């Protein structure tokens, strides 16, 4: 497939809605709901307090208007997500043309 869209990656900081939800519990939930053209590149966690974790998800998406909003909306719809903010966006390169 030839794809001429650039691929960006956003680092999203996610606060789950309660204690005990870490990266491994979160990953399958996100994978299920991501829109077409978006995928998880990496997911990590940082323990905060009282069993709460911050999840950091690097999500790839196509560089087109509104694409990041769509990804954010999808993840935000998960009932396990309390707050989400994209803290950095970077250009990337990708395996297009394969």
């Amino acid at each position, binding site marked *: 497939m*030839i*794809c*001429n869209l*650039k*691929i*960006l*990656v*956003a*680092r999203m*900081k996610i*606060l789950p809605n*309660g*204690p005990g939800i870490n990266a491994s519990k979160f990953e399958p939930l996100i994978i299920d709901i991501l829109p077409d053209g978006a995928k998880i*590149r990496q997911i990590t966690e*940082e*323990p*905060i*307090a*009282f*069993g*709460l974790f*911050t999840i950091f998800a*690097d999500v790839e998406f196509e*560089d087109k*208007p*509104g694409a*990041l*909003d769509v990804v954010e909306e999808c993840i935000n719809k998960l009932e396990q997500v*309390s*707050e989400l*903010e*994209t*803290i*950095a*966006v*970077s*250009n*990337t*390169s*990708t*395996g*297009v*043309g*394969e």
Partner: protein
Amino acid sequence: MADKPHLNLIVAGHVDQGKSTIIGHLLVDLKVIDERTIDKFAEESEKTGKGDTFKYAWVMDNLKDERERGVTIDLAFKKFETPKFDFTLIDAPGHRDFIKNMITGASEADAAVLCVSGKPGETEIAIAPGGQSREHCFLLKTLGVKQMIVAVNKMDANEVGYKKERYEEVKVEVEKLLKGVGWDLSKVPIIPVSGWKGDNLINKGDNLDWYDGKTIYQAFDDFEVEAPPVDKPLRLPLQDVYSITGVGTVPVGRVETGTFKVGEKVIIMPSNATAEVKSIESHHVEMQQASAGDNIGFNLRGVDKKDIRRGDVIGPIDDPPKVVKEFTAQIIVVHHPTAIAPGYTPVIHAHTSQAAATITELVSKLDARTGGVLEEKPKALKTGDAAIVKIQPLRPLCLETFTEYPQMGRFALRDMGTTIAAGVVKEINAEWDLK
């Protein structure tokens, strides 16, 4: 690697200034990109007949026909190291959409490389009104980036010929631009480079003998890690608030300034609630005190989850966070389909908070290159304009002046899913009386 201080490095520049080539060549020379990928670039380069140096352009995905060949490489958030630091690279996308994330996001850039082409014509486009380099200079400053290197690129171009005279011409223009935005020129090295050939990226090379300054790589180690602002009064914007069984009310957030201690009584604004800090944890470890830069969760006594919320800011009772009713700001309009006039009401995003806010007065339009006033009381502002304006949030919102609390004094204005402007708070004109 673990013991070195870490810096986020953002690379910015107007389109076609050679940013991609600089990043690619640097990472190849630093061996961040694996040999197999480099070999593949070299092979493809040979096929094009453009020689070995062409491989660096392949590192980034900036040309359609290159990507169609199926070359794959991964550069986002790439890490590399120098003798003094660990760096994470952020290759800033051109989209203005992401400016809001850079401003309100917790993971801010610590240092920057601004790429400016030295090629006649290209330099002028980048730093002319509307040029992205001008906008980037302002935005980087707004993001709180205090350290920057300017790479004057394409010194190898035929029209430039590695000539000192051309570098000096560009340097004068860049310095004007930096000064206008408020950069301290003594702290911004302006380095002539060739992203294509590699001169002055890591090694000096043989083509720029007249230049006796540092290479980009050497200049990276002149960056400094800023001491966290622990001596300022406490400011702790809340990212979220939980009610945890057996514990109680648990807000989480990052201490932006000052210190935060167990046993201390604090005020939470604009909710105007007071509470006592019962316990603090970070990385699931209990601590008696947190200070600027710490991401923490803490248990508050005397306040319920429903009384406080994301966007609230915690401070000392005798020096509470300011809740602004009107403030004067310096903004740059990054995108607006028509023009901004008094009465325009976008949404202001600052730290963890957001609220509708009306631009009530356009005080003056500024020359972003000199900082001077271009026009008093302009009727409207367009994309690319820098200006001093007055803004009134429609509900209580915690903000501080950018000079006192940079982390609390920068903001983005958004409307219909787009970032309209970015700015900093110059002065607080009126505060809400919440008593």
